[in-house]
């Protein structure tokens, strides 16, 4: 409770209400007002989320900050929300990212400012709702609702091919989640009329049904993550999305998939998870190796980072299906870290794009001569993307590789190729963009970071270094939850 309000509800609804208030500021005459409300609202949203961490009891795996009210009595649908060690860090990541995207769009968005800011705030609240929902219907509503703001962000403020990208994004993810709804209805029936996710965790289900449920969830989550081969919407969506959209997409939206596996697939269908683990691991390793090679050949910076996102998310799904603490906690750390790093990488490309309106690597070269401060930040994030120890990028990959070797040496072997590929595609891009003599008159005219951009990148730099040097506080809160989950999925539910 915060000033008499239930904390978790506040974290979900405050950004949504602020978002609606921003929409009410109307046309671009009131753009400055819209920006300031958005900034205040998003920072407030982050501040009120902090008690989730400080008030969190890491010694229990039970849901905390729980609220439970009847929603549709006849269908047994409840407004049931709560967090555990898995969802809490993701909510914090989301609340942390929102002010950053508001600042990132501060100057560059000059049209329909209120709608743009409103969309991000509303999306932030909705995503918090996804992570906090303990009721399947509530979850599904938030899940699908989160598509709409992102669809609009890409479709309205995106690049030239934005309509194709927006529709591809929307259809891909919508088709994926429809089967999830079918799975929920099946679970509702077989649980005797409950939509409570926790009830589903305890529900015994025969293997054939578990496999079907697993596959239904898989389509929904694999598209979000995205896993190979349902990843092709991501590069298009990223290339067309405005910078802020890319940041949220990479830092937050992809995590919904990883979270889905942890909350639904593994605990509801543990036997199917074990049964299909090798397939999941194979898909994840393909993501790491295949996508790593594909990323190498990209000529468009955003596409390159999009592909690198897919490869990094491959570590998340790999970690989840190793069924040991290294793997699952590594996957969690990787999700948080990827939130920081991919967000930062897209912001860096945004900084360049805002100046030259090109994302092509070939249009740059020698940027360091004109933008030394930018080059330094970009170097840090590039190294983090390549998984350098001391940055957050290393921690998750390290943990997952440690977990993988326990299952099979060759899984670890293939996963560890990211050490080479990750460095190759990231640093090769860095070299072509940043190093060298000034390549063109337009590069000659570049100016270094503005104060606003500097603050933005500095915040992320601190986050990346902090998580790399001292990840203990993060893993500390998820321990008991992960242990409990591992315990749960090691027991058959047949």
């Amino acid at each position, binding site marked *: 409770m915060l000033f008499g309000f239930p904390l978790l509800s506040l974290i979900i609804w405050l950004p949504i209400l602020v978002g609606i208030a921003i929409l009410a500021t109307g046309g671009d005459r009131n753009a400055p007002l819209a920006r300031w409300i958005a900034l205040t609202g998003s920072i407030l949203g982050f501040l009120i989320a902090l008690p989730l961490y400080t008030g969190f009891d890491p010694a229990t795996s039970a849901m905390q900050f729980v609220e439970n009210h009847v929603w549709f009595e006849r269908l047994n649908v409840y407004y049931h929300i709560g967090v555990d060690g898995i969802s809490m860090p993701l909510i914090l990541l989301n609340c942390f990212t929102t002010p950053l995207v508001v600042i990132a769009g501060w100057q560059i968005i000059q049209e329909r400012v209120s709608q743009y800011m409103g969309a991000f705030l509303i999306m932030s609240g909705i995503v918090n709702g996804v992570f906090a929902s303990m009721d399947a219907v509530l979850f599904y509503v938030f899940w699908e609702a989160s598509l709409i703001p992102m669809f609009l962000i890409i479709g309205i403020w995106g690049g030239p091919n934005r309509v194709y990208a927006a529709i591809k994004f929307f259809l891909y993810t919508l088709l994926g989640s429809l089967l999830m709804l079918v799975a929920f209805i099946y679970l509702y029936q077989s649980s005797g009329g409950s939509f409570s996710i926790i009830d589903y965790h305890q529900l015994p289900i025969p293997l054939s049904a578990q496999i079907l449920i697993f596959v239904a969830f898989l389509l929904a989550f694999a598209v979000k993550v995205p896993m190979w081969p349902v990843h092709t919407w991501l590069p298009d969506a990223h290339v067309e999305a405005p910078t802020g959209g890319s940041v949220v997409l990479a830092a937050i939206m992809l995590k919904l998939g990883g979270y889905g596996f942890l909350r639904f697939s593994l605990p509801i269908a543990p036997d199917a998870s074990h049964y299909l683990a090798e397939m999941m691991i194979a898909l994840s390793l393909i993501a790491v190796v295949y996508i790593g*090679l594909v990323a190498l050949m990209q000529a468009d910076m955003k596409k390159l980072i999009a592909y690198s996102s897919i490869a990094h998310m491959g570590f998340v799904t790999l970690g989840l299906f190793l069924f040991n603490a290294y793997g699952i906690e590594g996957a969690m750390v990787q999700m948080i870290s990827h939130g920081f790093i991919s967000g930062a990488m897209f912001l860096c490309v945004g900084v360049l794009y805002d100046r030259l309106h090109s994302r092509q690597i070939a249009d740059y070269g020698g940027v360091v001569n004109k933008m030394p401060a930018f080059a330094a930040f970009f170097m840090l994030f590039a190294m983090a993307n390549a998984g350098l120890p001391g940055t957050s990028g290393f921690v998750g990959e390290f943990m997952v590789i440690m977990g993988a070797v326990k299952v099979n040496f060759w899984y670890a072997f293939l996963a560890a190729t990211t050490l080479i590929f990750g460095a190759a595609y990231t640093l090769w891009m860095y070299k072509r963009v940043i190093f060298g003599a000034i390549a063109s008159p337009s590069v000659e005219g570049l100016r270094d970071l503005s104060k606003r951009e500097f603050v933005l990148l500095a915040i992320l730099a601190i986050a990346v270094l902090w998580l790399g040097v001292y990840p203990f506080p993060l893993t500390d809160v998820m321990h008991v939850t992960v242990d409990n989950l591992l315990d749960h999925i090691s027991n058959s539910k047949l």
Partner: protein
Amino acid sequence: MQTLYLLVPLAPLVGAIVAGLFGRYIGTVWSHRITISFVFISFLASLIIFRDVLNGNVFNGTVYTWLVTGDTSFEIGFLIDQLSATMMVVVSLVSLMVHIYTIGYMQGDPGYQRFFSYISLFTFSMMMLVMSNNFLQLFFGWEAVGLVSYLLIGFWYTRPTATYANLKAFLVNRVGDFGFLLGIALVLMHFGTLDYAGVFAQAPDLAGESFEFIPGSSWLVITVICILLFIGAMGKSAQFPLHVWLPDSMEGPTPISALIHAATMVTAGIFMVARMSPLFELSDVALSVVLVAGGITTLFMAFVAVVQNDIKRVVAYSTLSQLGYMTVALGASAYSAAIFHLMTHAFFKAVLFLGAGSVIIAMHHEQNMEKMGGLKKYMPITYWTMFIAALASAGVPGFSGFFSKDAIIEAVAFADIPYAGFAYFCVLATVFVTALYTFRLLFMTFHGKPRMDEHTKSHLHESPWVVTLPLVVLAIPTVGAGWFIGPIVFGDYFENVIYVLPEHAAIEKLAAEFTGIGGMMLHALVTAPFWLSLAGILTAWYLYTIRTDIPAKIKTIFGPVYTILDKKYYIDELYSWLFAGGARALGSGLWKIGDIKLIDGFIVNGSAKLVAGFAVLAKRFQTGYIYHYAFTMIVGIFAILTIWLY
């Protein structure tokens, strides 16, 4: 004392942060003053710790808990014993000298503060590496020195060759780290901890355990672990076949070539294997791999050094070859000799590099030795210090390099590990080649007729004191460090630190014959290495001062051999074709065929087209024209009736 331990790495880190973030505001002078003072603090602290360790106070403890996952706790901690204390003194001394030298070498460079920031950051990283008490922190330091090396090779980032070289260095090192990390993963899996103490204590229990590494073939766990760890060492210490990055790293400014790519960072692999002696001792196969890689590197890289004309490249290939010596020593279980050679090499190679840098300053950044000659009278301090270092490098009795190298050669002769014979041949033959290329460098640069243009010649002068002081200071251990061979290699200095199996006791056999440094020098007069070395020096003297026309003739007569050496055995070409080209072709194929054609073209857009196709078909039935509907109805009724009646 524990505060001092923290001070050793943290002081340079503070210096690096100050110079890096605020260098623009505090200016060049304060940048070097601050970083040098902090490195000096680190050096003093290292000395005090060294003395403390000599008094028997070793330390093994945790600084903070990095991460807890499952039932394992990963910690950042220090292990201060004879090995780490020795490394700390060597690293901080060379680093301090290089910091001072940099004032002269980098004068007027626009990246002056940045350079100081980087070398201080390097000192921090290297200290974390050598002081670590666990594999994780070792890997941290390992990659961090790689990062700084990357930044410094590409320091002059507008040069295409520099940014090519730094990318290459990072990626080749990453190949090594790939093996290293897998080795660490196997260690964690089999020992349940990454702490050295815990791992080494359990190592003997695991000695006989094997697993199906490749389906259908059983491998000793320890062998696999050690080979993987050694792959890491091959990357960092530039052993064949991962040596290709080191010569190119000479694109960086000379001070870092001395500090990072000769004296300290590249020896991290040697240090690591010595640290892991309780593991490597348990696997003869791994030791053989180490011997062979070291032997090949020693001999074949020395050959390349003979044909180089770039003064820095000669020293670079010499470094490769000397690292090969250390590796061979490791493979022969002569860990203490390897560390001893690491130490003497750090000093004499630093002098050679810094001296080369001094020459390069005088020559206005000309590095081609064919355009030098006769510099002796213009730069006496540089000449004499380099002369001493060359004697040490060639292994002339009395100088530090002699003792360490001789110990290695003798130890390999005593070793019983498979392929020790091959390695012995390599290290012995290389003695001649080493003396040849080292003195070729000296004679081509400092003796004979000046071959530079008049303008350069008129400006020739000795370098300022900030450059010559480090040369003189480092020349002292270049001569004298070897005299401590008795206690360090043959004594009990590394007792409880380095572990050698009784059946691998090459050093112990050697120690039995050791009668003091005087005896060792006298004994050398009747052994092959001394005469090979002398022959090398004389050959170089004859070819490069007396009959300077002969080398050109040799070049024409042995054309193909010369070309192969000049092209470094075409390994670079092979790698860039096979690995860089291969990865690009594969990536391009997967992208254009896998992603664009198959997944997007066939499945995603294909299903969209399928839906659209159905829609077009369905649209035909709903045109809105009554006669279309009427016609369809008639056809339909006709069809139904047909079925009905049939």
